Structure formats: structure tokens, C-alpha cells
């Protein structure tokens, strides 16, 4: 066991550091600066282009497809180093590299790879995800957006339906889309996967007013949207397999624990306890912070174990969901605790107390973490079934044609 970099890893880290030191600062976002969505997206594209030109995009992507063909642990090293800069990254870039490209690489045709891979790595094409629907979230295969062949013999598809939680759909160039093409078969079997140009007539995105006050998510209405058959990824009816490829990317990508307890300890250290000390000295707060800190460290070391498994060619499977499950609840619990330790000012920050207002935002946003990318309950089922070998859930809709479901 060795927690430190191997000589090769250290050399790679050094290479990454040197390159980043030269190229990253010009792309950094000044803290507190206000940007429009368009500016943020443009900055993100520019950083993608810089990465591409420097040979730092698609690190784990096969060389034959324009990536660097590196190992997962090298990708982690790069993201650790990249994370030291405040760079313009967001779902508009991550969905492309983490979801669209893996599915195009695995299930797409030569033409599709040629059209999308390099353009995405360069930041010329950004992506959104058109998966969830009002009645299909954790049970994604229950989706109702349907596609039928146009009756003009063109082979085109006509799509109608509604998608939700499509981050950045209003500004991205293309979307990955899963729809129902055959309602006469059981639900998982009648799905087909497409890529869709977001400028196609009939696509309307409306921002969702979220509880955080922000609106980075959209609902997307598709009304008689015509998609050429050349935009179909994989065969008709293979949509579910494509979704699994996409969600695997999401699961592995969403597991990285973000910063947690240190800022809260800072906040506690700035809050008087009424006995001449600060809230760091408060017994109850101390206990909760220490337990959260122990868990945060464990998540980091668990990630290291998963990385080691991947580097040895083992598949962590449902183990990967454990980090996300643990992280999301801890994030909610500790940001909630942080507001409480602040006293009444936790819910009404004094002017200029950005640490408290940031914490308030995190407490609101933590609810997303427990739902998106595998809800807590879904992950618990997966762990129980796939790690512990317990029975699967009763499925009332199994083997019943979709159109006969209530």
C-alpha cells in the first residue's frame, strides 16, 4: 500500500502542474465576478479549447478516438491539479465529455464519431442531457416522449414530449435524447437513443424556477421535432443500453467529494459561544464536526481504493455509488449544522457575511445531491442487491407491454 504518487504518477503530476501554471491563470474566474450564462458558457468553451490544444482533453479516451488513452488515476491527478484553479467548468462541458462522448464512442457509427468527438473535446460543441421527464425520474425507463418515423419516407423521426432537469439546455448546441419508439414491448425494450441539434425547430426550453433562486435547469418541450435517422445512436430499441453507458459515466463522475468540513470549522471559529470561546469549543458541535470530518476523510480514502481497483482493471460496480450516497447526506447534514452554529444569524446573514450566505446556498443545493445522479434510495437498493446479494425489488411492470401499463 502506498498513498503517495508512484514515480510515473509524480512525473505526470509534474507535467500537468507545469502546463497548468502556464495556461490556467488566464482562464480563471475572479471570485465574486458576475457573469451571464452566455459568458460563462463561452469561457467554458475557451478552456476546453485550451485543454485540447495542450493535449489535455479526453485523457481516458482511447487514442484512436482522439483521446490520450491514459489511466483513471492519471485523470484523477489531472483533475486534482486542475481543481486548484477556479476554472470555468460546468455541466455544459462535463455532459459532453462524461456522457455524450462515451455513448457515441461505444454505440455510434464512424460518421458520428467523426462529427462529434473532436468538436466536443475542443469545446466547439457543448451538450445537454434530455433524459428525465415529469413522470420518469429514478424510473427512467417509464419515459413517454415518443418518436415515430415520418410518413414521407425520409426515414426521419418525429419526436413529441417533455423533458426536465436538462441543465443548460438553453445554451448548449446538442442534446443526448432518449425516447420511446415502440410502446408495444415492455418498457426497457422500446427505447431508442438520439443526438439532437438544439436549434431544431420545435424545441422550446423554459427555465425552471428552482428553490435556490437560480435557474440552471430547464424543462424542454419537443413538439414535432424532426430528427434525421443519422442522429440515431445504436439500433432501434437499444436506447436502454446506451443510457446505461451514459449513467455509468455519471455515477463515476459524481463521486468525487468536494470540500466540506474545513470551511465549516472556519465559520465555527468565527462564532462566539457565549462563554468566552468560539463554537469550535462547543461540545455538541465539536462532536458532530469531528464525526463529519472522519467521514470526509474516509470518503477520500475510499475513492483512493476505488481508483486502485480501476487501475488494476477491476470494476467497482455498485461500490462506486457508496461515496455519492455518503457524501450527499453528509453535505446536507453539515451545511445544516453550519447554519445552526451561527445562531440566529445563520438564517439572516449580516451584510457582507458571504460565508454564511454561501453556506445557505449549499444547504439548499444539497437536496439536489441526494436526488440527482442516483437518488439515495436507488443507490441503497443497488448496494443491497449488487454488493450484498439481496433480492431485487418487486416490479409490477415487468414483461408488460408499455402501452398496457396504467
Amino acid at each position: 500500500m502506498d498513498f503517495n504518487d508512484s514515480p510515473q504518477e509524480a512525473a505526470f503530476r509534474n507535467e500537468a502542474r507545469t502546463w497548468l501554471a502556464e495556461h490556467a491563470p488566464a482562464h480563471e474566474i475572479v471570485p465574486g465576478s458576475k457573469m451571464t450564462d452566455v459568458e460563462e458558457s463561452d469561457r467554458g468553451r475557451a478552456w476546453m479549447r485550451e485543454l485540447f490544444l495542450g493535449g489535455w482533453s479526453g485523457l481516458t479516451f482511447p487514442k484512436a478516438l482522439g483521446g490520450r488513452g491514459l489511466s483513471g488515476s492519471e485523470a484523477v491527478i489531472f483533475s486534482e491539479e486542475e481543481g486548484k484553479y477556479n476554472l470555468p467548468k460546468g455541466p455544459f462541458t462535463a455532459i459532453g465529455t462524461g456522457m455524450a462522448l462515451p455513448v457515441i464512442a461505444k454505440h455510434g457509427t464512424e460518421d458520428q464519431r467523426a462529427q462529434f468527438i473532436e468538436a466536443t473535446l475542443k469545446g466547439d460543441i457543448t451538450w445537454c442531457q434530455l433524459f428525465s421527464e415529469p413522470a420518469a425520474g429514478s424510473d427512467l425507463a417509464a419515459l413517454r416522449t415518443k418518436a415515430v418515423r415520418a410518413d414521407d419516407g425520409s426515414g426521419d423521426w418525429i419526436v413529441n414530449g417533455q423533458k426536465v432537469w436538462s441543465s443548460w439546455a438553453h445554451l448548449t448546441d446538442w442534446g443526448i435524447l432518449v425516447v420511446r419508439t415502440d410502446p408495444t414491448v415492455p418498457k426497457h425494450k422500446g427505447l431508442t437513443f438520439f443526438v439532437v441539434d438544439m436549434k431544431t425547430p420545435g424545441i422550446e426550453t423554459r427555465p425552471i424556477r428552482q428553490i435556490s433562486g437560480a435557474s440552471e435547469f430547464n424543462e424542454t418541450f419537443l413538439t414535432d421535432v424532426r430528427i434525421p435517422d443519422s442522429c440515431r445512436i445504436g439500433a432501434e430499441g437499444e436506447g436502454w443500453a446506451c443510457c446505461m453507458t451514459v449513467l455509468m459515466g455519471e455515477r463515476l463522475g459524481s463521486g468525487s467529494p468536494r470540500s466540506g468540513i474545513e470551511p465549516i470549522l472556519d465559520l465555527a471559529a468565527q462564532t462566539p459561544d457565549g462563554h468566552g470561546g468560539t463554537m469550535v469549543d462547543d461540545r455538541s458541535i465539536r462532536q458532530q464536526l469531528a464525526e463529519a470530518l472522519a467521514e470526509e476523510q474516509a470518503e477520500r480514502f475510499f475513492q483512493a481504493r476505488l481508483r486502485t481497483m480501476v487501475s488494476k482493471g477491476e470494476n467497482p460496480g455498485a461500490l462506486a455509488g457508496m461515496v455519492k450516497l455518503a457524501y450527499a447526506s453528509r453535505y446536507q447534514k453539515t451545511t445544516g449544522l453550519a447554519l445552526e452554529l451561527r445562531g440566529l444569524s445563520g438564517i439572516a446573514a449580516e451584510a457582507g457575511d458571504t460565508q454564511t450566505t454561501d453556506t445557505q446556498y449549499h444547504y439548499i443545493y444539497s437536496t439536489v445531491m441526494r436526488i440527482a445522479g442516483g437518488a439515495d434510495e436507488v443507490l441503497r437498493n443497488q448496494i443491497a442487491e449488487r454488493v450484498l446479494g439481496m433480492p431485487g425489488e418487486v416490479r409490477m411492470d415487468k414483461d408488460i407491454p408499455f402501452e398496457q401499463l396504467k
Partner: protein
Amino acid sequence: MNFDLNDEQKMLGEQASALLADMTPFDRLRSLIDSDAQWDEPLWRKLAEMGFLGVTIPEEHGGLGLGALDLGVIMEALGGANAAVPFMSSIVLAAEAIRLAGSDAQQAKWLPRLASGETVATFAYAEGPGPVFATDCRYTDGKLNGSKSPVADAQIADIAVVLVEGGSFALVELDQEGITRTRLDSFDQLRPHFRIDFKDAAAEPMPGIGKLDRLIDLAAVQTAFEAVGAAQACLYMARDYANERQIFGRPLSGYQAIKHKLADVAVATELARSNAYYGGWASESSPDDLSGAAAAARLSGIKCFEMAARENLQIHGGIGYTFEANCHFYYRRERMLAVHLGNRGFWADRLLNARPGSQVQGA
């Protein structure tokens, strides 16, 4: 980075588990309790014969000279079997204390005997209710006076390392006039605890001073391994029972109330294992990190074992409350582990104090 046990360590752990599965099935634990035994002596002899007792004792003193992770996989196996042996007392604590603080002569005399198992040692630190590291016991001019209580395994131990006034250690042979050992009503029936009264008992000073913190950090990591092994055993016991038990026409394990509970135990156990691995690695390779790593490992180790021991019994339902079921061994041991070497508040303080820039306070 290679954050996994090596093949030798995995094999050592498997060997230990196989031996324990063979020698200490649950019926054996029941018969030890029924016969009011102090320990499982045949198992101890076997562990000695296999070389497990000497795993971290230096080669020049008859051990294998291996590291904390090698010790950890053995502790994990012992935790899984809920074994009734003084491994924590004799090897993890006393032998390590002698290595850290003993004179050359003390090391040369005792370490080979501890490695071979012919001598059993214990570590005496508490003095009644309250904070566990108490130092009213006094060593002066070759004599030890005062009391230590509770002390694990004191009746079968030949020697004790005693925490005394000033925070240093004294080494004492227990079979002598001036020492009385009284068995206490011990919550973990397979790990009896005792009160020891010293009245002008002959003892030797141990020259190393200021070694308590490192000793308990190293032991906290090993406690975490023991707890993880025990939690994993509870998790599998609960899962297997739930898979077998039919209720309302289907297996108990098919209900989300049960699946989700055990998924949470599984997550807590894997997180704790990760902290234990890091603690084991830091024990050898990153001494500056050890204090924080040990406290984190200890906190998350006990957390997972606490969840696992409680939910295992709960999932068994009424049968779990019977002596014939096997949940109670772990349910009792968990509380013993949770308070030995300091409770959660103590380790929470140590974790926060180990952060860079914090005021460092010792035990």
C-alpha cells in the same frame, strides 16, 4: 498510488480468518461463557504457533517484524470471529508499549516471550469511572501503589504495563504479594475485566517518556480494524438471516426497510475500512499524519460496528434476544470497544486537535 493491501497481507488475513472459523465457532464462544472461562487458551496457543502473536515484534526479539497493516488484517479477523483472546492487551498495547518505552533489557526479556505467547501482558490505564487515562497510581523507588480498574485480561496476564503518575509507564509482574486482582462483572463476557490493587508492589520504571499518545494512536488504528471485521461479520450474519427468513410470503431481505438499513451498514463499513487502511499506512509511513488518521479510523470504526451490532440483532427479531442466537456476542463487544482507550468525545477532540494549526493536546 496503490491503495490496497498487498497479496501477502490479503493472504495473512485469509489464513487468520480460516484458522478462527475452524477453532472458534459460535458454540465454542457459548461454552466459554458457560464455563466462566477467562479466555480461549487453545486458540491463543494456536495463534502463537502460527506466528500471529509476533507479527509486529522485531525479528531480533523473535517476531516477524511486519507492520501495522499486517497486524490490522489479523485484528480484522479476530474482530470477525469475536475471539476470546488477549491479543489487544498483550500484543497491540503491552508489547507495543514495551517497544516504545521499554529499556533494551526489558525489550530483550519480554518481547520474545510475548511473541511466543508464553507470557501474556496487559495495559492498565483507567482508574474507575470518568476519563480513562488516569494517573493517580504512583511509582516510587521500585514500588507501585494505587489501583487500576478496569483492566482487561488481568487474571491471565503475567505482567502489566501500568500508566502511572506523570504519564510514564511502570512494568510489573502480577503474580506477587502486594497485588490483588478482583474480577469485575464484565459486560463483554468474552473479555473479562479486573480491578488491580497495588500495595508496595515491586515494579520497574520504563525509561521512555511521553509515549502514551503514540501508543494509543497505533492501538486506535488496530481497534478500527477489529471493529471493521466485527461489523462485516454482523452485516453478513444479518443479510444471511434475512435471506433465509420468510415473512408474509417472501424473504425478509426483499423488503426495503431491511435492504436500506443493511446498505447503510455496508457503506459505513467500507468508509471505516478506508480510514483503517489509511491509519495502517500512516502508522508506518506517515507519522505526522498518524494522530488525525488514527482518530478518524477509530471514530468511523466504532460507528460502523455500533450500527452493525444493533441492526443485526434487530433484523433477527426475537430470536436475536436469545443466548442461542449469535448477535449478542457482537452487541456486547461493541460497547467494550467503544469505551476502551477513550470514548467518542475523547477521539473527536483528538481528531480536531490533530488538524494543522490546532492546539495539540495529549491524552
